């Protein structure tokens, strides 16, 4: 897919995501909108997988550690064919496995999340296994910047850097907000570059995580990197991107607009032209 096609795809994914969340009144809208373009680029341009052979041992792995954002993956998994539209429509219905936090029993999902700070360590184990098998598969792990306040993240960062897990790619969704406040007001993670490099990682930064070109650029050599270090990509994003009444309002974490506001959310995303011109 080219840049324009990816931008259109991201747009479609966001709209579908908003529709299912508003329909059920559940979902971390703002957290998912900050990483929608990242996820689109990963699934449609970067990651290696085989729909005809979902258990292919050398497929890349994706771990959504900031799992409150995982609902954005459901329309993607539907679009690429892991799950059906009918299955997608069971989102948050009684008895459905398709919940606000993703589970390993969902086709195409590699990790059950919901508790922060665990996914990066699990990704380390996956990367270790791949390294010992001499497989060239990569492990991508998306963590939130406020998730980086969890101590267990730094156990894993230290472990991966020390053990030179070069097949591990940690993507930090740097939307700057936690549940209730901006992280610069709580415990900031800056200077992230110095921290990661100090722990033996290669660090890259994306200034605009909603710009498809910038994302494609940062991932372009991810498979052939010369470095033997794990790679951390800090991606600057906006929580609730594309929906003005949801941005820069930390207390909206985990909130799902309903009624007229829900309709407005879906319509705003439908009309959103960012990256499409």
């Amino acid at each position, binding site marked *: 897919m080219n840049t324009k096609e990816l931008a259109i795809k991201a747009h479609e994914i966001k709209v579908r995501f908003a529709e299912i969340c508003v329909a059920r009144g559940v979902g971390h809208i703002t957290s998912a909108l900050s990483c929608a373009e990242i996820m689109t680029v990963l699934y449609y341009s970067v990651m290696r997988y085989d729909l005809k052979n979902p258990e292919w*041992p050398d497929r890349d*792995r994706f771990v959504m550690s900031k799992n409150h954002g995982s609902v954005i993956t459901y329309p993607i998994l539907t679009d690429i064919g892991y799950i059906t539209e009918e299955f997608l429509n069971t989102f948050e219905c009684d008895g459905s496995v398709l919940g606000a936090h993703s589970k*390993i029993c969902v086709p195409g999902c*590699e*990790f*059950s999340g*919901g*508790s922060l*700070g*665990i*996914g*990066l*360590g*699990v*990704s*380390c*184990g*996956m*990367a*270790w*296994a*791949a*390294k*010992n098998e001499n497989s060239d598969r990569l492990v991508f792990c998306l963590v939130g910047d406020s998730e980086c306040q969890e*101590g*267990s993240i730094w*156990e*894993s960062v*230290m*472990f991966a850097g020390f053990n030179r897990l070069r097949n591990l790619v940690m993507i930090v969704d740097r939307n700057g907000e936690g549940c209730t406040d901006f992280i610069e007001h709580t415990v900031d993670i800056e200077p992230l570059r110095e921290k990661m490099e100090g722990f033996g990682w290669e660090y890259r930064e994306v200034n605009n995580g909603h710009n498809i070109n910038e994302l494609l650029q940062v991932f372009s050599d991810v498979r052939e990197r010369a470095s033997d270090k794990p790679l951390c990509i800090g991606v600057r994003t906006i929580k609730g991107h594309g929906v003005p009444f949801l941005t820069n309002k930390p207390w909206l974490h985990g909130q799902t607009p309903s009624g007229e506001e829900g309709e407005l959310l879906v319509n705003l995303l439908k009309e959103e032209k960012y990256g499409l011109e």
Partner: protein
Amino acid sequence: MGSNKTRDIIFNPIIDRLVADDYYVINVDRNGIPFIAMEKIDPMRSISVGIAEQNMISVACGLALSGKRVVTYSSGPFAYLRAYDQLRNAMCLMNLPVTVVVSSESRVSSRFGFTHHMTEDYQLLALCPNLRFFSVADVATAHAVSDYILSGVEGPTYVRLEFECDGDLEAVENPNLKKGFRKVRSGSGALVLAQGCSVVTACETAFATQPAIIDVFGHPFNIEALYEEILKYKKVIVFDERQTVGGLGSELLGYANEHGINKQITMVCVQQTKKLTETCGEREYWMRISGVDNAAIKAAVDD
């Protein structure tokens, strides 16, 4: 006085089959001689995470998700206390075939204080979905658990080893892992249900009349079969170096309540007191102030 015998029973066969069976062993702080041996065989299969129990469990989960057979090893209660989130929400929730082996040297932990006492693992682990756990009281159980691990565990497993449980109890029954308990001593009048070190303590106690002693070494255990035994005895005592609240006794009484069984069960378990949380001493001192020594079980049985 205690040794690493049960640890070696568990890990030596794994060392032998490390490469052939695709085992990975993760330990905290390169804990113990077996792990040095494993590193020599294949350093990629013997992973030290440093002193980082949370990462130990998370990395184990990632390896298991990649189809590996994983065993972790660490000392003290930290694998289930510090890493409880990872145990419950990653390892158990995803039903991953990871075996978590923890070891306690009770003689040492009594000196180190409350932070090192494993007095609530049963309570916490019984709440984890899909988890099987074992408390090893002697070499026979260690061998049975070792066989279970080597046969290829299908889900999350926790094994509690204690240095003081390295003997041969010459039990009247062999450990049957499906049943989860075994009779260690035949007796009359009273029945003592114990786990881990308390089985050893009960076996070493000189009672006026020998009670039957059952080692409830596994969880989940066959509770219906255990109640068949319980109802044969006039007096039933749960004897455990864990705290009373939420432990084996609570579980048994909950079942009795649900099934209309009217049977009193006396608890001789660790009492959380200021002495327990604030003082330290020899193991004998710890057992005395915790209410789980020979005198305590003798009084409960002979009374």
